[in-house]
């Protein structure tokens, strides 16, 4: 079972602030998610390991440069930019 303390720790790692009112709800949701993973764990017996997708290995790319995207495109969806950089404003 996931505890309130664990929720607060995970929130801290994810740089999220959680209010006391939200705590119960989040803990319940997290427990449901973990429970779902338990279901997967139970089902994966004999289903092959997760990390060898279809038995493939060594899917490589050759080391050849392809032109990068135009900067306007790269920055296109950014809420804030400055001088060609992504800009992260200080939180007040």
């Amino acid at each position, binding site marked *: 079972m996931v505890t309130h303390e664990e929720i607060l720790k995970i929130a801290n790692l994810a740089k999220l602030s959680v209010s006391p009112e939200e705590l119960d709800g989040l803990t319940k949701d997290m427990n449901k998610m973990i429970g779902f993973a338990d279901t997967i764990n139970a089902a994966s017996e004999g289903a092959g390991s*997760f*990390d060898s997708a279809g038995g493939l290995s*060594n899917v490589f790319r050759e080391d*050849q440069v392809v032109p*990068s995207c135009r*900067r306007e495109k790269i920055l296109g969806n950014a809420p804030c930019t400055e001088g060609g950089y992504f800009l992260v404003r*200080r939180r007040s």
Partner: protein
Amino acid sequence: MNYELVCGLETHVELSTKTKIFCSCTTEFGGEPNTHCCPICIGLPGTLPKLNRTVVEYAVMAGLATHCEINPDARMDRKNYCYPDLPKAYQISEYDQPLCRNGWVQLKSGKKIRLTRIHIEEDAGKLVHERGNTLIDYNRSGVPLIEIVSEPDIRSIEEATEYVETLQTTMRYLGVSDCKMQEGSLRCDVNISVRSKGSRQLGTRTEIKNMNSFSHMTKAMEYEMNRQIDLLESGEKVVQETRRYDESTGCTEGMRGKEDADDYRYFRDPDLVPIHVSKEMLASIQARMPEDPQKRLERFEREYSLTEADAALLIERRRAADYFEAAAKGTKNPRTVANCITGQIFARLGTDAAKDDFQVNVSPENLNALLRLLDAGKIRTSQMKAVLEKMLDTGKPASAFLSEKDLAGISPEELQKLCEKAAADNPNAVKDYRAGKEKALKAVLGAVMKTTHGQANPMEAQKILAEIMKA
């Protein structure tokens, strides 16, 4: 109490592949911010990484050169942490199945520093903190890195420096990285603890992040070691934490909010398949590795009769050593070739960085041609040196500076005549010589050399003069 340092290093080395680890953007250093980017390296949803073959090959080379076991089945994992330099909020790295394990690096004293592992991972973007805001440039995001992790075998600051220098030389020699600390292509995290000398127990360690120069590393280690000793002496405890070195104050300070390994929630990256290093693949990589520098040094001494000092000067820089071998091919006196490189050519290049790059406008073939003229007795050493200077000035071959006449040399008949004339012009010297003053011959020889502009073979001329003057 007497204390000793216990130190292990995590060294990040940027690989000098042309493209990033998971996309085909260039890895070139510098460039306008965010111009070496694509949806993959800025972590847009729906993109898929595809591993650069050369990254695997370079990492395996690094592992082989440092005596590591190569893991035949390596895996890539996600290391989760939230920081704006990491657009996906995870870094793709290797957790429990790194490519290389259990290696070592040998110091000059013969001591071996054991390596725990070498794994491949992606670099993060660059943050510029300005007036409280943060600017992000993702050009570096996705540049391939290897992280070389040592065991805590290092016992002094000098050993730490030598260890990093050895890694630097090895990686440069392999051609897998330029290891420029000032450009961030080699960075170290230093793990430090102290203990009373002779104790076998490890003390509590701290980690100093991101050392990007030898002088900072030395100063930071000195400061941190003394800080820990002071704490222990005053009966306090060292707290295990990550610290940052502040160049302006010369102090280290604690960084808050550092995750434990568990907090990274490592898991296999489901977008990437396992890396299987087969025997064939290993053999093909091995075949492409340059000769081990130590073995090459011994071969240079043996094959080219170079002194150890000369051989070492060449071996230190792979490009210089390669150039030497090309230029020395088929020449009678490889030592002269070595002297041309370590003397005139190194002097032209000047800085250490330029010697590393070894961009010389005289091709090894042209130097070889010049030295063959020397071998054939068509020119003399002083002339060869002067011509080499002109070649270095202009990039032109030797033939551009030597006339037909120069190359034809002086025929024996001509030399005989010149000697006779010189003797006739210097009757006093001849008289002295006949009176037993052997030195007088040198004066006449000087005259011959002067009229021939140094082209005459002095040994031949001396023989002829001795014959003429004794009569």
